C-alpha cells in the first residue's frame, strides 16, 4: 500500500476541517485534507440562518459576551462546559471579523457594518447572516482561502479507519474513490472533522453524506464518544421532505400554529414563545400532533404571511424557495407545513476545549463531530457555524503546538494499515446475503421511533436489542457492485458500518441516563436530575459491548437553574 507523509491530516472538508487546515498550514506545516466529497459539498453548506457573534462596536448596546455565554449554558440545560461556552462567546466577534475580511458577503446595515438579527434562545440579537445561506457563504469563503495555501486536498477519498500504534494515533487509511486504491496517510496528528450522523434517522435535515464516519472511526480506535444520548431535533423541517426551514423564519417573526390556528407555543414557553430552544419547540409540536391538534400526515403550520412580501424575499429567500419547490406552498400567502426532524448531534468525540482528545495523543476533533462540550444537552441556533470556526481555529492552534513539541515516531504502521483495509473488504466479501439498503432502512426507523424526541425504557431496550441484531447482520452484507471505479455501493456499506457502531452506543447511553435534560427526554423520567446526572456520559465501544463512564461538567460561574422560557 502506498504511503503518504504529512505533519497533520484533517479528515473532513467542511468549515471545521478547513479552518483547522488553514491554521496548521499557515504555520508552515504540511497538511492534507481528506474529504469524501468536494469540500463545497460538505453539509456546512446547508446551514442557513446565521452565525452568532458579539462584536464590540457592532452589537446591541445592552449585549455582552457573558449574556451570550449564559444563553448558551442555559440553552444546553447546564450540561455545557462553561469554559468552552466562554471561549465561544469571547472569540465570536474575532471570528466573524475574520470571515468578513476573507470576503464573506454578510448582509449589511446602511453604514456598511455587518447586520444582525435574533435567533432562538438569545437575550439580545446577535446572529450575523448572508441572506439565509450563511453556511454556504462561509463554507465557500473558507474553502477559497484555504485552497490558496498549498494544502493538499484529497477530494472524493473515503477514510476507512484511524491508524493506532500503542496509544498514539499515527495516521489514517483512506481510499481514492475513483480508483478504489487504498493509501496510508502517515502523520503525527489526525483531526476528525467529519460532521454529523443524521442519516441514522428516518427524518433528518442532514445531507445524504452525514453518516457519522468520524464517530465510528474514533470508537473503533478506542476513543470515547461524550454525551452520545443527546441528539437534536429541529422543530421546523419541511413536510414531507425534511428540508430545513431555518430558525431565522421564526427569528424574523414567523409563528407556529396548530390546526385550530392557535399560537400554541404560549403554552410551552410563555416568554420566548416560538423562539424557545429547539428541544422545547420540537416536543411542543410533537405533543400538539399527538393530542390531535396537528394536520393529517403529522405536521403543524409555520406562518409567515403577516411579514410581507418584500421582507420575506430579502431575508428568507431560501425558505420561500424550499417551501415552493419542495412543498408547493408560497409562504408569502400560505403557511408552511413543518414537523421536527433530526438535525444536529451534540454528542461527539471527547475533546477538551483545545480540541485534543485527552486519552489518545495525536487525536483531535473539531466541529459537529467533536464534543467539547460547548452545546451540552441542546445546541442554540447559529452556534454551530460559530463552533466550527472558533474551535476549528483553536484545534488548529493546538495541533501546531503539538507538532512543535512532538517528534516523528520510527516504528512502522504498515501492518496495521493492511489490517484495516482487509477488515473493510472482509465484511463486504460475501457472494450473497443482504444488501446495505435493507439494514439501513430498518435502523433508521428504529432510531426515529425509539431513540427520538420522546424516549422510554421499554422502547430503548427494544431498540438496543434490535440494533445489536442488525449490527451483527452488517458483517454478512454483500455488495453486488463489483466495479473497481467509484463503487458507491461499497462506500455506502462502509457508511452503514459506521452508523451501526454509533447506533448501539447512542441507544445504550439513552437507556442509562434516567432523567430528562435538553434534547434527551424520557417519558418515564421527565424531570432534570442535577443531583445524580449533572455529568457527561463517556461511551466506549469494545467489540460487542458498550462501556459507560462519566466525567464532571466544568462549571465556572453559572449555577444550574430551572430552565424556563
Amino acid at each position, binding site marked *: 500500500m502506498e504511503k503518504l507523509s504529512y505533519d497533520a491530516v484533517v479528515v473532513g472538508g467542511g468549515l471545521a476541517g478547513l479552518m483547522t487546515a488553514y491554521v496548521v498550514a499557515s504555520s508552515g506545516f504540511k497538511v492534507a485534507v481528506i474529504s469524501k466529497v468536494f469540500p463545497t459539498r460538505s453539509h456546512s453548506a446547508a446551514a442557513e440562518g446565521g452565525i452568532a457573534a458579539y462584536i464590540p462596536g457592532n452589537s446591541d448596546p445592552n449585549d455582552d459576551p457573558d449574556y451570550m455565554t449564559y444563553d448558551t449554558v442555559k440553552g444546553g440545560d447546564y450540561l455545557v462546559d462553561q469554559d468552552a461556552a466562554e471561549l465561544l462567546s469571547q472569540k465570536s466577534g474575532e471570528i466573524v471579523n475574520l470571515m468578513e475580511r476573507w470576503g464573506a*458577503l454578510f448582509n449589511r446595515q446602511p453604514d456598511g457594518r455587518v447586520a444582525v438579527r435574533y435567533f432562538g434562545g438569545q437575550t439580545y440579537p446577535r446572529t450575523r447572516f448572508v441572506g439565509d445561506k450563511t453556511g454556504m457563504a462561509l463554507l465557500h469563503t473558507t474553502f477559497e482561502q484555504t485552497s490558496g495555501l498549498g494544502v493538499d486536498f484529497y477530494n472524493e477519498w473515503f477514510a476507512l479507519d484511524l491508524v493506532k500504534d500503542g496509544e498514539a494515533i499515527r495516521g489514517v487509511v483512506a481510499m481514492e474513490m475513483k480508483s478504489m486504491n487504498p493509501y496510508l496517510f502517515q502523520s503525527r496528528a489526525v483531526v476528525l472533522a467529519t460532521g454529523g450522523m443524521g442519516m441514522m434517522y428516518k427524518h433528518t435535515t442532514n445531507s*445524504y453524506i452525514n453518516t457519522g464516519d468520524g464517530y465510528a472511526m474514533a470508537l473503533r480506535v478506542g476513543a470515547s464518544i461524550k454525551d452520545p444520548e443527546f441528539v437534536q431535533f429541529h422543530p421546523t423541517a419541511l413536510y414531507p421532505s425534511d428540508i430545513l426551514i431555518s430558525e431565522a423564519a421564526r427569528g424574523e417573526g414567523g409563528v407556529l400554529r396548530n390546526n385550530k390556528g392557535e399560537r400554541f407555543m404560549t403554552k410551552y414557553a410563555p416568554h420566548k414563545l416560538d423562539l424557545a430552544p429547539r428541544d422545547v419547540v420540537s416536543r411542543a409540536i410533537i405533543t400538539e400532533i399527538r393530542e390531535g391538534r396537528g394536520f393529517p400526515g403529522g405536521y403543524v403550520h409555520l406562518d409567515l404571511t403577516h411579514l410581507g412580501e418584500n421582507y420575506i424575499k430579502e431575508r428568507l429567500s431560501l425558505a420561500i424557495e424550499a417551501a415552493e419547490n419542495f412543498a408547493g406552498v408560497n409562504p408569502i400567502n400560505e403557511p408552511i407545513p413543518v414537523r421536527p426532524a433530526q438535525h444536529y448531534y451534540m454528542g461527539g468525540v471527547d475533546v477538551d476545549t483545545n480540541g485534543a482528545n485527552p486519552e489518545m495523543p495525536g487525536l483531535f476533533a473539531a466541529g459537529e463531530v467533536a464534543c467539547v462540550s460547548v452545546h451540552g444537552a441542546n445546541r442554540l441556533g447559529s452556534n454551530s457555524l460559530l463552533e466550527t470556526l472558533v474551535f476549528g481555529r483553536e484545534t488548529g492552534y493546538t495541533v501546531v503546538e503539538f507538532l512543535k513539541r512532538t517528534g516523528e515516531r520510527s516504528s512502522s504502521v504498515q501492518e496495521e494499515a493492511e489490517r484495516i483495509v482487509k477488515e473493510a473488504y472482509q465484511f463486504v466479501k460475501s457472494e450473497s446475503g443482504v444488501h446495505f439498503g435493507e439494514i439501513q432502512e430498518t435502523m433508521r426507523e428504529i432510531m426515529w421511533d425509539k431513540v427520538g424526541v420522546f424516549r422510554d425504557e421499554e422502547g430503548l431496550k427494544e431498540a438496543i436489542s434490535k440494533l445489536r441484531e442488525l449490527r451483527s447482520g452488517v458483517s454478512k452484507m454483500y455488495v453486488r457492485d463489483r466495479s473497481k471505479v467509484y463503487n458507491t*455501493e461499497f462506500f455506502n456499506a462502509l457508511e452503514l458500518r459506521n452508523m451501526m457502531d454509533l447506533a448501539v452506543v447512542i441507544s445504550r447511553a439513552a437507556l442509562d441516563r434516567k432523567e430528562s435534560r435538553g434534547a434527551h427526554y424520557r417519558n418515564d423520567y421527565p424531570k432534570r436530575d442535577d443531583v445524580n446526572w449533572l455529568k457527561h456520559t463517556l461511551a466506549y465501544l469494545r467489540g460487542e459491548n458498550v462501556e459507560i463512564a462519566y466525567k464532571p461538567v466544568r462549571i465556572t460561574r453559572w449555577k444550574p437553574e430551572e430552565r424556563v422560557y
Partner: protein
Amino acid sequence: MEAGGKGVLKMVEQREVKVRVKRFDTEKGNWWAEYKLVVDWYTPMTEVLRRIKVEIDPTLSYRAACHMGVCGSCSMKINGKPRLACKTRAIELLNQTGDEEIVVEPMDYFPTVKDLVVDMSDFYSRMFKVKPRLHPAREVMEGKAEHRLKPEDQRTLWKFGQCIWCGLCVSACPAIEDQDFLGPAAQAKGFRFLADPRDTLTEERAKLLIDSAWRCTYCYQCFEVCPRDIEPVEAVKKTRAMSSLYKGRSEVVRVGVRHSEAVAESIASTGKIMEALVYTKGYGASQAVKDMIFLLASGRGKYLLVKETSVKNIEEVKKIVGGAT
C-alpha cells in the same frame, strides 16, 4: 386541489413512473437501465435515485448530498435538460414535458466516470484559474484596518457570489470549446471579485476576465440552467462594461469594445443601428471591404442601398443613451 391554507395539502397523487438511466462503467461502456417506482407529488429525483439504490439496484452510482439545492452535487441531465436532481420533482417533470418516462443521463461535456458521476476536474480548474478568493489590502488582512462594504455592493456581489459549483452552466455552454473562454461559472465567480471594491488583485483579474468575457455568445443557456439564478451571462455583460480596466487589450477586447462603442454611437446619433457602419467601425475598413465579397455573393448587396430613416425625436434618444458614448 391546491395547497395548504386549511391544511389540505396537494393531492398526494401516487403514480408509478418509469425511469431510464444511462449507465456507464469502464468495462461495459454505456448501457440503459430501466426501473419502475411509485412516487408522489413531492418526490424529488434524488429520492428516486436513492430508492432505486436502496430498494432495487444498489450498483447505481451518482452524487447527491444536501437534497436542497445548495451543494451542487447532483447535476445531471433529466429529460434532456441540465438540472439538479434534488430540485426536480418526478411528477412535475412528467407533467411539464408530457413524457411517459423519465430519462436520466450524466451532464454533457464532462467525461463520465461511472453512471451519473462525471469528472469535474475541468470545471474546478476553470474556477481556480480566476483566483476565487478575496485579496484584501495587507492591513485589512492583518486586522489593522477595516474596509466596509455598502449594502448595494453586497447585493450585487452576492448575486454572482452564490455559485454552488454545480457545473450545469458549463455543460450547456456552446462557447466553452474556445480555449480562452473561461466559461460562465468562472466568469461569474471572477466578476464577484473583480467588482469587489476591497480586492487588490484587480489588474490581474481584469486581464483574464475581460478578454474571456468577449468570447461569450449570449445564448443565455447558462441563465436558463443555473439552479441558483445567478445569471452568469449578466456577469459577462457587466465584465465587458468594465473593459476600461484592462489596459493592454487583446484582439477580441479591442474589436469588442470598438463594436460596442459603434453600436452606442449609432443609436445616439440616429436612434438605430446602421449595420454596415457599425461593422466597419468594429472590424476596420479593410476587413469590411474584404467582407463585401461575401455580402455580394449572398445576394444581399441590394440592401446596401436602402437607407433607413433616423428617429425623428433623436434628442430624446440622445438624452437616454447620451451617457453611454
